[in-house]
């Protein structure tokens, strides 16, 4: 397969920009990032794009391909209607820096505000812990997150309503869930998730889950259990305490 294709790439900076067309030969097995690299090497040497691993492991090359939040390195041209131009736009939930590169520094600031891992005392005299694989597996799903921020990009609270000051977004709800459900962690983040994290803003439209390149069930497995935990710990601490005392397990524990 060798054919000509057109790529319509947004070019500009924080002051504004526009879509620009590039035409090039494409061949079998190419992904969108390959096309962007070829354009960069042959037609637009100063084109700005982030990438590192090119194998879906680092989450650097996030962009919107034909309007869908995607990792460019994992989007095969054969999965797109190539008779039409392929439109590539930077993520819209964050300020653009240049071309396909956004300023995602807000995410790094959010993470610092979430109380870190706090382990229980070691289980064995040699200072190590014992954990069941089943308990580890439950959290593994969240720990697969590659911090591509596509879930943040697609979340309407951030994308449409720009509530960056009040809502930490799906990525950091997943992060909080990974800590809260860590078999060793004894920290508590429920009140913070409610008061500063804005978990109440999430109305479970599952857009984040739909775009996650790691297939994390963000809404069902992370956000909903966290919401239950918030209800328990912030709004109904007495019945929670009773449950703990009587040893009855609640849905969120």
């Amino acid at each position, binding site marked *: 397969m060798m054919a000509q294709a057109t790529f319509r790439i947004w070019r500009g900076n924080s002051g504004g920009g526009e879509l620009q067309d590039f035409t090039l030969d494409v061949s079998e097995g190419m992904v969108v990032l390959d096309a962007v690299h070829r354009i960069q090497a042959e037609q637009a040497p100063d084109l700005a794009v982030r990438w590192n691993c090119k194998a879906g492991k680092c989450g650097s090359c996030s962009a919107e391909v034909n309007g869908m939040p995607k990792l460019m390195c994992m989007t095969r041209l054969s999965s797109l209607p190539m008779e039409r131009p392929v439109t590539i736009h930077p993520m819209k939930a964050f300020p653009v820096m240049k071309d396909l590169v956004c300023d995602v520094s807000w995410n790094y600031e959010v*993470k610092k505000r979430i109380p870190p891992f706090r382990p229980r005392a070691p289980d064995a005299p040699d200072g190590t812990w014992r954990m069941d694989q089943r308990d580890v597996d439950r959290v593994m799903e969240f720990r697969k997150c590659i911090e591509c921020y596509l879930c943040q990009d697609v979340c309407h609270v951030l994308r449409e309503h720009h509530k960056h000051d009040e809502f930490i977004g799906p990525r950091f709800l997943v992060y909080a869930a990974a800590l809260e459900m860590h078999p060793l962690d004894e920290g508590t983040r429920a009140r913070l998730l409610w008061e500063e994290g804005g978990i109440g803003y999430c109305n479970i439209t599952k857009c984040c889950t739909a775009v996650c390149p790691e297939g994390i069930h963000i809404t069902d497995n992370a956000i909903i259990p966290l919401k239950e935990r918030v209800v328990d710990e912030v709004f109904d601490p007495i019945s929670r305490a009773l449950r703990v005392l009587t040893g009855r397990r609640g849905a969120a524990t």
Partner: protein
Amino acid sequence: MAEYRTHEYDVLIIGAGGAGLRAAIEASGHGARVGVVSKSLLGKAHTVMAEGGVAAALANVDERDGWRVHFADTMRGGQYLNNWRMAELHAREAPERVRELEAWGALFDRTDDGRILQRNFGGHAYPRLAHVGDRTGLEMIRTLQDHGIHQGMSVHMECTVTRLLTDGARVAGAFAYDRERGRFLVFRAGAVVLATGGFGKAYRITSNSWEYTGDGQTLAYDTGADLLDMEFVQFHPTGMVWPPSVRGILVTEGVRGEGGVLRNSAGRRFMFDDIPELYKGQTADSEEEGWRYCTGDPTARRPPELLTRDHVARCILREVAEGRGSPHGGAFLDISWIGEKMANHEEHIRRKLPGMYHQFKELAEIDITKEPMEVGPTTHYAMGGVRVDPETQMSTVAGLFAAGECAAGLHGANRLGGNSLSDLIVFGKRAGEYAARFAKEHGPGTFDPAAAEAAEREALAPFHREAANGENPYQVQYDLQEMMQDRVGIIRHAEKLQSALEALEQLRERAGRALAPGSREYNAGWHTALDLHNLLTVSEAVTRAALLRQESRGAQSRDDYRGKDPEWGKLNLVVRKEAGGAMEVERIPTRPLPDELAKIIEEMG
């Protein structure tokens, strides 16, 4: 004098992968003010791509394991050119560094009794790799990143150091630009830790990201430090070979650890055909024994697919050269065959190798639970790098430290899988600790402002060149990669190496004409032009050392000097800049092993 935004730290760490972050945590813990400079966003470094696991003799799965066995395996894998003291420290300290990661929140797969599970890997006598499915690197870097941000380090993301600044014979800071705006900045520091990783981008087929351009090695070399063992470049035997756009992307050795086998186009399991003398006693002599090993039978010996990487890579090349390769010039790696041995193999594979399953499904439309993969060698790791003191990780320049892939010594002629992640945390910690101590004892240095101004002029040169005979930096980089792949690749020969040196001279001349059109803001072409100096420097060092080492050992295979030469087995090669600016290579004798360590190797052999 020009005004630069200036930051002052006790310890400046260049690189934010596993080694850099571990160093930052340690230096902060010693009370140092720490700055970390990262070429990419935090958490995106090459460490994130490490799949298989971190080697540490925890002996959780096989109690015969211990630091002595790990030490002996590492020395044997490195063909005894390793710095034995580094190999000893590494084997002794890795378990504690892994347990510490768990205390910071890392979650590893578990044994039935709840301890950290360990898996088989090439060259390791017993299951030794603590792992998380096949995304151990992600778990490790995220743990270090998340722990580190609460330890008080300042992180300068998307920032590139182009020159180190010195105060007489010691390091005093660094000159850098920020990628976003292209502005220059100056770091003053009492000590500097290089943790920039390797230089696989000098080759066309590579598992490495754009960042792997030999920055740390070049910064050190340009400052007068020694480089060591630069000829030893590891070609990982299993990179993807199809489709073309993913060529080089890594397929973890964990696939073979879990029972994956290599076959040629005739369906023959060719790894049984050539087992090196050094490993005969430890290698299975039947397919059945190999499978038992992969299922954890302690009485079984490892299958030949788990021989060292250099050997497996050469065997695949031999099959291809003799016309028995796969359709796209590699070999078949098959894990789906274990369906013959277990009922629920599809689920087992997806659980043990989720990343690989995903990668092949998405990028090659192959279901690895049902079909074999096509794989071939890919440039993966630099055993060579900055020569360091084994205890402190200080280079031959005072106050300049190096750790991780950027440093040399631990791995000798060839690195065992899993020994990289453990290297990062063992020597990252040491570098951070001793850099903090150095900074405290010696205070900040001062540097000549003219040096920063010279660095600025040098950095801006690609914007000011004549367009008439200008070069496209991407094209120069591409031509360099092709040339190195062809002439300084897996199989080397004096004539080709000599011609590579001539080609490098021409490429250097072309790099001097590389242009950067556009503005200074996030200009990838400009950055590519600046990276060329580093790529050319390390490429020349590899080529010169490869030419001088007239033998085949570990990762170095010479067509014209086949086999090991005992004399060369006692020599390391040091590369440094002569007073006149030329690159010189010097032979230095390896340090003799102390008796007690020699005895360990003898007993474990």
